[in-house]
């Protein structure tokens, strides 16, 4: 047998275990979900074939649009903030100080916690009357009692803040790696030309890590669209439905309202949104790459 054929076979054998799990648990549900979305389907199984009725109903479902709106709001507000903070922290972690290793560890550590732990931390910190934040505010002389988890605006701030604390370390590490790949000669050349530190950051660092910024942007947007566990555990999507993201609405429709057909429909809507976003992103970054050549 030719070597390349042997290599091909051993590659396939190594990929097979993961491939099987991927096909069964990721690819198959995607296909099956489309099938379920055409039915009235409950926990006991399929009921009636309804064709595109679920899709039509989705467009007039106020709760669907509200939940989508919340998720969009989260994506649009947090993506730039998280990327900027990851970049700033990476700058801090890249400077030659004695605390360099300490900073890197400390800012990355929250990422290893599970989302349940992070959510409960948020609840205990921001609880009224006895939470850490409010008792600290009272010690500092603040007399009011901010209801962090009951006021919709404050609740969103809590969710965005705790998610940032939890996940910024990951993007920061990607940036640190990218920054270390920047050749020192560029900085030397810049300082010979009389550039200040700030100028160097803007004209050397940021352009050189642009590919990483692109990847982080794509990953961050997709991850933000999948927002569910934190609001679910911190505010249950409340008060009322003020902090309910689309995935929570899908979850409630499937498992609380026993309507898996409609839930699958909405999952597909979300999938299409992310697909369109990714395609636009690919086209734009492909165009840019060609322009730069």
């Amino acid at each position, binding site marked *: 047998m030719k070597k390349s054929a042997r290599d091909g076979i051993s590659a396939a054998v190594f990929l097979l275990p993961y491939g099987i799990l991927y096909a069964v648990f990721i690819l198959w549900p995607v296909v099956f979900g489309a099938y379920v979305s055409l039915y*009235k389907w409950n926990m006991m199984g399929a009921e009636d074939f309804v064709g595109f009725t679920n899709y039509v109903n989705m467009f007039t479902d106020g709760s669907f649009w509200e939940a989508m709106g919340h998720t969009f709001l989260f994506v649009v507000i947090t993506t730039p903030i998280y990327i900027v903070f990851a970049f700033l922290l990476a700058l801090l972690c890249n400077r030659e100080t004695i605390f360099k290793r300490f900073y890197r560890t400390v800012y990355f550590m929250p990422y290893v916690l599970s989302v349940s732990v992070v959510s409960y931390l948020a*609840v205990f910190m921001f*609880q*009224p*009357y006895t939470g850490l934040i409010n008792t600290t505010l009272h010690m500092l002389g603040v007399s009011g*009692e901010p*209801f962090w*988890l*009951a*006021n*919709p605006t404050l609740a969103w701030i809590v969710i965005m803040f705790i998610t940032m604390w939890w996940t910024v370390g990951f993007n920061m590490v990607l940036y640190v790696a990218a920054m270390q790949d920047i050749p020192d000669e560029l900085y030397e050349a810049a300082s010979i030309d009389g550039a200040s530190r700030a100028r160097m950051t803007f004209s050397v660092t940021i352009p050189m890590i642009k590919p990483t910024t692109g990847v982080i942007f794509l990953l961050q947007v997709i991850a933000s669209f999948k927002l569910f566990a934190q609001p679910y555990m911190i505010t*249950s999507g*409340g*008060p*009322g*439905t*003020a902090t309910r993201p689309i995935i929570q609405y899908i979850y*409630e429709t499937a498992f*609380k*309202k*026993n*309507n898996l057909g*409609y839930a699958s429909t909405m999952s597909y809507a979300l999938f299409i949104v992310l697909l369109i976003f990714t395609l636009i992103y690919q086209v734009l970054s492909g165009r840019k790459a060609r322009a730069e050549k």
Partner: protein
Amino acid sequence: MTASTFNGKHYSIPIDTHCYAIFYNKTMLKAAGMVGSDGKPNITLGNNGQGFIDYLVALKSKLPSGKFALAETEKGDDVYRFWFSIYNQLGGKNFISADGKTCKIDTEKAVKAINYMKDLWTKYKVIPENLDNNHFPDQFQNQNAALMLNGVWSIYTMANTNGLDFGVIPFPKLFDNASAWGDSHNLILPKQKNLDKGREEAALTFMNWVAENGAIWGQAGHIPAYTPARESSAYTSLPGRSDLVNAVSSVVFPSQSAQTWPCKQIIYQNLETVLNGSVQPDAAFKTIEEQINKQLKS
């Protein structure tokens, strides 16, 4: 047993009733002088719920600073349970029609119920605002709250709290009826494709044993469904239970519909917005009716 019978057929074996009740801290109430000669809170019943309000306001004024009268949450299932109890006391019945297809809420009584509740937070301030729905019982457990509205299932935790001398009374008759929210755990046998008679009989023997030995289950706080178990000394000798034996007669169970849980969530999600002031009660119940009707059609 009536609740587990549908169209003349038995569908499940009830093992308990668990209902809404008032927990009271004996130490705190005695110190405030708010107990009757029987050691229970001397709440004046009826008078359109005013008696309860007066009691809570008086209690609040007599408690030391840092303590408060009543622990209850403005979020989640407990909002529904509190509202449902008052709604039924006012004469509203179950909100799903007998045929299970439409929502029938008596809006006037529904609004009256939620306004009564809301005043306890905003007008009389006898309940601190925004207590967490999972952790508000902690306030009773820590002896910050003199009273707590909760289901009887909390009895076990409270009974095992050191230093907490408490009692439980069924949800009192504040309005026209002595109704309280309640539900029931039932044992069922799912329909099998191939029925093994031997296993079915074994399962039924077990279910029977569970019902008869309800006093053991009752240690968790639930009220046994099987009458001899409920009236047995094994059950009634448990702390606080003797007051609950008759609670079962005023319990209002949910409608016999597969949709009560989704509808319950619709109700409390909308009631939360009334309690936090962002939606007016009339508008909220209009939304509730629309959403429940949509849910019942799906």
